[in-house]
């Protein structure tokens, strides 16, 4: 299962410190893992804890992206709206090992895809099929870039987050990775497109 999906900055943000990152979208799947432990936390406290966990993941991915880009030395290709396919092709990807306790109670793998200044991250449970997760992440990223016009200067990722929710409910329902061949995929994408058109 996928525990969460995030979209966050991987470039320096002027309002923030050096290694910090701004989370633009986050979605945790399933029941709260803290709920089953002995801690007696109220819903507010649980929510704060969840947000903090997401922030930890985003920071770790941010630093992984920075180091990876520094090591590879590839210049960042600037793309404009309309060039989503190229942006995706030029995107760099990787996976970060999140140790047990840091921040989830079990070990997780955080797959990331860096498209210019933004990172798309999928946090998967240890026994998950990472090949499938990689493909799903690419697919989700492509849809986000297209339907939210993310290569432009707009803020639709903030103002139209319901589109991402709808996208996730089809392609990654409740965090379940799906084995979709091109036909099943097309069928779901038609539904997504119908939703986005509203």
């Amino acid at each position: 299962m996928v525990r969460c999906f995030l979209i966050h900055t991987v470039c320096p943000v002027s309002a923030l410190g050096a290694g910090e990152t701004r989370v633009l979208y986050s979605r945790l799947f399933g029941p709260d893992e803290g709920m089953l432990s002995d801690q007696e936390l109220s819903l507010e406290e649980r929510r704060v804890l969840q947000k903090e966990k997401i922030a930890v993941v985003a920071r770790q991915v941010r630093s992984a992206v920075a180091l990876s880009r520094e090591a590879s030395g590839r210049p960042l290709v600037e793309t404009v709206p309309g060039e989503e396919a190229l942006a995706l092709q030029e995107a760099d990807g990787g996976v970060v090992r999140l140790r047990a306790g840091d921040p989830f109670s079990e070990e997780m793998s955080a797959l990331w895809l860096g498209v210019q200044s933004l990172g798309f991250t999928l946090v998967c449970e240890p026994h998950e099929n990472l090949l499938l997760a990689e493909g799903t992440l690419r697919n989700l990223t492509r849809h986000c870039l297209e339907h939210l016009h993310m290569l432009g200067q707009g803020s639709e990722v903030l103002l139209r987050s319901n589109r991402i929710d709808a996208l996730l409910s089809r392609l990654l329902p409740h965090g379940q990775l799906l084995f979709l061949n091109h036909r099943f995929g097309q069928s779901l994408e038609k539904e997504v497109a119908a939703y986005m058109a509203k």
Partner: protein
Amino acid sequence: MYSHGSESLIKQAREIQESELQKFYSRLVKLLQGKDFGHETVDSLQRLHLILSASKYTRTLPPELQKRVQSLLSSPAEQLQVLSSAVLRETPPLSGQELNYNQENVSQLNSHAAALLLSQAGSRADLSSLCAQLLRSLESRSSEGPSHSLTHTLPILNTILTHSPQCLTEDQETLLSKKLVDWLRYASITQGGGASSGGFFTGPRSRQPAPIAELDGTVSGDFFTVLCVGQGFTDDQWMNVYSFSMLRHWLLTYHSVSNDSTTADTANRLQLSLSLSHSHSFSNDDRSEIDGSVVSMVSATSSSSRLLPPKERLREKAFQYCQRLIEQSDRKAHKRIDADLQKACLVEAVCILDCVCVEDASLVYRTFPCIKALFGRLSSDLSFARVMLPIAQFYLNHGEMAAVDCESVWNLVFGRFPAELFNDHFLAHELLRFLRLNLESLQLRVPQYTHSFPNLLKLLAWDSPAAVDDFVDLLPSLVTAGTAVELLHTLLDLPCLSATLVLQLRSACLPISEPGGRGLLSLDAFRNPSFRGLFLFLLRVEAGSGDTIDRLGTLHELLAEVADWPRVVQCAQTVPVLLHIFFNTVTTVADEKLLAHLVLVMLERSSLLLIIPKYIKEIHRVFSCHLLRLCKLHPSLVVDQSHELLEFAGATANVYSKEEIYTHVVWVLGEYLSVSCDSRCSVRLITSCFEALEAVLFEVTSSAPPPGAVCPAPRVVTTLMSALAKLASRSHDLIPRVSLFLSKLRTVTRGGSVAWCSDEEDLVAIVTRGEELWSLLKAPGVAQSVLTPPPHVTTPQWHRDINVAMPLRLRALTNLTHSQ
């Protein structure tokens, strides 16, 4: 992509004033009071979501607003469902109005409402009732209703299982097992969903549903799987996809090997499974060598399989499904996305087969031929490397039982993969994970593991930030007495390996005659035949051909320009950590002879390192720390290696170029070169050591440092002085010489500043220490017991020591009896 606009939106959302917020709330309530909801409502709800989610501190909505938003959860418009669910997830439920987990109107539980229930579940009981509800809806589902309104049921159940497997009762488990079997194995094999071709020919013949097809276009001849296509899909075909997607997790959760299975049980299963395989038709190729079991043709069903209980039946069907997937993956898919899916399916299928075989060992004989064939088919194609890892896991788990030769698998995993695919992030991650999870098994069954570190370290050298965490866990297992020295050299030269890998890739990409550009000199060197041997040694695949090369210095010179390559710098930063782990581990497996050898390696390599700023200093620090520890553990090492240590300590140049190590070498000489540490320590040895150190001290304190070097830290001088004093306390003839030097030092420094010490305070500290030692040495007996304390002082035995015990006991008893 990320603009100032977004940044200011977030800021606004966080800093919205309370009055403005209340106005916004009441406006939204008014909007929601109407019957029709247009764009304005949607935009306002979206804005509300942004305000709530932008801050990590929770805001509560006014009850009226919250109630209205909650009613939107069951709205026919999906946008409103999505938004209301998203908004309500960010805010606590109204007190007394917690979502009822025992609702009867089950059919209204759409995916987004269910997501809300999940996120706000407060206890296992909540989750259990949610499960019960969902299963009821699955059972009572009739053929009407939107096509996949209930497909979200399986994902929800799956996510609940992750957190709390006990949420399902045994009956519920059985029910779901049966349903999974139905969907996986008995889904329709005709195309669904109004698959009319349209056009002119709409006669009765075209209304007959067409059969499903394989990915290469041929008509499918067997049951439906995720690798089958059609124009449209029926409900149960959708459920087939969802069922397979959760199958592995289900099996892992509920089908772990039961501890209470008796031998009779296993025998029964074995018999049943063998009878199943006999009733299947034979396959033409690849008969297993094991007697009595044959490969089954997947499509032929056996009537005896219905005799199995639901759990075992599911296992059997999962087995068949996976075998079919493996067959289907051999077909040439027309589309790239399908080819990728085939690979993912192969991984999943092998993992599920492994899972199923762990649970029921009798299936191993039926499975192995298939896995072996798959390995044979894919092993030479590196693009299928990631499929090889689950296969390797299978071999590791079951190879011994099936008496199959696994060598070719390990040659691939430890040989080709790290050597040729080191730059594949995902493969590296999965390979290292595989090693971590199977460490014990590998150490037992794969003898070449401990010799494969030159290859495995390539993964670290290429992508240090990602791999270092895994190597912190793996390195201890790679430290063996036989390979420790070579491993140490390899770790010290990791940055060179990193640079070499970069050069290897560049050399393959760039044409021979590339003019100018970065890395020209090192690339030339890499391509130069006379230096080939150096690089080939670094790129070797296994240990055993030699600890290191003679021309290491040449190699470092050739790679001088790589010192600022980011990849090399990142790699260099991980080496100190690994060295610490290495030394901590090696003391547990090495004998004194090996430790002595390691000390020599440290001394030798301290001047033979790739020149990267800070790298050398860090390595020296690590060496110093562990030199100290090793000598403390085995003090006789110092006498053993006294010749080399003296050689090092007697070279004045070392004071300036390797200050840290030099200080520590002098310290260990002073501390452990004594008869109480090793009886072989002779007066002659002490004297020669004394003379060597004395000479250096004279030189250092009589002239300015050589051009280009800084003044030595006061610690070096005081350590030298202390060492001399210690040695003198063991051989009293030397005391006058030390005393003479120390008084001379006092005289000289009274004259003001000196060329060899730039700071006033430092000089004062040095002189003070000199005076302390001088006065101590005036009473040789005292000096001896202070500077060379007998062992029972340095390792006190407290209550174990008869002499010390009695006073301690008396004191304790007195304290107990005096209750105040």
